[in-house]
């Protein structure tokens, strides 16, 4: 049980948040329970990053989770809410990377794309004009004249956020005018650069990536946008597309040469560290598994660059408090 339900403590670690981090957090929990039978297996709930932050920031105490998993960085507004609710000391630990990878079925057309192509193909108003592109050739004459059909994550998912920030905005900023716009009119820039077209060419495919895999298998001309781990684990059915000539692999993603990498975080509530049995051990367990040959890499997580790993490893032991002013 929770042990002392009416007040007091809890004897099981509780983590909530991102669905992207969820499989890794599960694996860490499972390993922890195996390696130390005296610790109850942590409870991991995939609520999505936002809902997870909301729960995490609701306060200090056994009724609030100890850890928030996130597929994006905590927002300033979220941090402020945390502070308002007395969650003042939070440790941010980057546990790895996730790549936004473009993939097609094996035997597909081997599209060689650039962020610019993708921006022109998927933006609602590329460079401020309505998007009329129907085939890849419309976007870039070098590409085949196949119809554009992209299955991607819905707007509620972190992967979509990454798509916008890492690919679309990048493609958009290739145009100097847009880059200038960024400084003059941020809002307009965001609209032009990150809005995705809604005329059926970009298909919101729900959260179930298995279904996207099935779909692009069924239609070799279609492209899917996945978290990299999905591409990895379905390597027998789909293959990653090159982006500006770079194939998505562990290496290219972890050194950021493939332009779709995003960091994955866990946020630890420091006030709980001493009070919740197993919390420190769980965080430490992360650090044992996030290495190159670790379990998490096998599950498809992209290992963070060494420098990041070193810093994260340090954070696991020193548990520095997050400075809200760094956040956006």
């Amino acid at each position, binding site marked *: *049980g929770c042990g002392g*339900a*009416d007040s007091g403590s809890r004897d099981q670690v*509780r983590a909530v948040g991102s669905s992207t981090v969820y499989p890794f957090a599960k694996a860490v929990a*499972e390993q922890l329970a*195996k390696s130390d039978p005296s610790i109850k297996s942590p409870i991991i*709930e995939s609520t999505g990053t936002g809902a997870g932050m909301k729960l995490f920031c609701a306060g200090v105490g056994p009724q609030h989770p100890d850890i928030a998993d996130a597929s994006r960085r905590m927002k300033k507004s979220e941090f402020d809410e945390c502070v308002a609710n007395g969650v003042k000391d939070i440790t941010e630990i980057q546990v790895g990377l996730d790549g936004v990878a473009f993939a097609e079925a094996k035997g597909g057309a081997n599209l060689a794309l650039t962020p610019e192509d993708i921006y022109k193909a998927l933006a609602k108003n590329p460079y401020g004009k309505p998007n009329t592109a129907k085939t890849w050739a419309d976007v870039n004459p070098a590409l085949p004249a196949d119809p554009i059909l992209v299955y991607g994550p819905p707007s509620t998912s972190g992967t979509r956020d990454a798509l916008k920030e890492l690919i679309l905005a990048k493609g958009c900023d290739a145009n100097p005018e847009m880059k200038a716009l960024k400084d003059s009119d941020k809002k307009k820039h965001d609209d032009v650069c990150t809005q995705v077209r809604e005329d059926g060419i970009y298909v919101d495919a729900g959260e179930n*990536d298995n279904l996207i895999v099935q779909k692009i298998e069924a239609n070799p001309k279609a492209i899917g946008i996945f978290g990299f781990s999905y591409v990895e684990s379905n390597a027998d059915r789909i293959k990653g597309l090159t982006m500006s000539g770079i194939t998505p692999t562990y290496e290219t993603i972890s050194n950021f040469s493939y332009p779709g990498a995003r960091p994955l975080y866990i946020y630890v509530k420091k006030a709980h560290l001493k009070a919740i049995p197993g919390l420190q051990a769980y965080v430490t367990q992360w650090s044992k598994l996030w290495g190159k040959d670790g379990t998490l890499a096998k599950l498809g997580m992209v290992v963070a660059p060494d420098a990041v790993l070193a810093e994260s490893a340090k954070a696991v032991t020193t548990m520095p408090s997050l400075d809200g002013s760094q956040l956006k």
Partner: protein
Amino acid sequence: MDTLTSSSADTLAAQRRARMAARLARRHTGDRLFKLAGLGAVAFSALVLVFLLVSMASSGLAGFQRSELRFDLPLRGQLSIDRDRLGQPDPASALELAGLPAMVDAAAEKGLGQGGAALLADGAWRDVAAQIAAKPALLDEPSLSLSLPATDELAAAQRGDGPEALRPVAQRLVQDGKLVRAFDWGFLARSDATSPQAVGIWGALKGSIMTMLVTIVLAFPVGVLAALYLEEYAPRNRWTDLIEISINNLAAVPSIIFGLLGLAVFLAIFPHYRSAPLIGGMTLALMTMPVIVISGRNAIKAVPPSIRDAALAMGASPVQVVFHHVLPLALPGILTGTIIGMARALGETAPLLMIGMRAFVASPPGDLTSPATVLPVQIFLWSDEIDRGFIERTSAAIVVLLVFLLLMNGLAIYLRNRFEKRW
């Protein structure tokens, strides 16, 4: 009537009779077609049901199996361990210290060929440890034939997908009879895990049972009492109308809205109990209660008024009439409705997603307040897993859920047939 009109009336009648006869065949055909359409509709529904059940069962049966590797582990004299230690808590650690994992790995290398140890699922030695702990006499056997879970990759390779490199290995092992799909009893005893080879349904099943327990303890008495009140005593006034409208409406309110209620009300009052069967049960109880009230009212209505009249005329008070006569007679009907309501609650997913019952819970819940998940949510979670080994497991979980539902439905049908109005 004179003769003239009479004879013209006769011809008219004859004409009409002729017209009638001419249409007859067509009308009869229409009749037969209509009946056939009805039969077709019924048959379609039945076929869909059968197809659903059969397809779930057939793929579900595969989910009750897992890929296991078979090889022998030499034992006698190999392990230096104090036998008494095996009877104490955590014998696995003792065996680990004694070097069991390395022994298993070595035996795997020997039995399965080079790289054999890497084919064993993580922690497969624990199965061996459990066997030995359960029966220390095994230590005196010369060797123990093992059947241990393979890694997910090998399991996938055996199915014919997964990493290319492993497929020939899997093929070779299958041919040698060393890699087999074996019935996995553990599936019914373990809880959620990250690897499809290691998952089990017991955690979710226990969560479901606990949740249902809370639901029935709350919903049944309240539902029955409310039904009695509304059917037997409620005065006709605005308040009663309000209650009636609420109940009828609640019976049709989408279940996800109850999830929002649980989120906003129950979790606000009991924040400690997120993901707990207690909260899940309370939420589902609110959902089930109106179903019980409505079926209860129908059952109570079906008790003939003559019985009430008889009791009243004997000088029984209204409360005595109800508790001596009406309730006992209506009870089978009420139970039938309750079971059907409970079956619905058992299959409910959406509201539980809202109150945190979608967590990864690696051990079965200890009590009503510990985090848990339930069968349908487990199905939903597994259906979303990347590893395709979960597809079969999902079907297997569905089979478990369906078996429970069919049992409950069967019980309801039995009750209904057995106690169908006999007065």
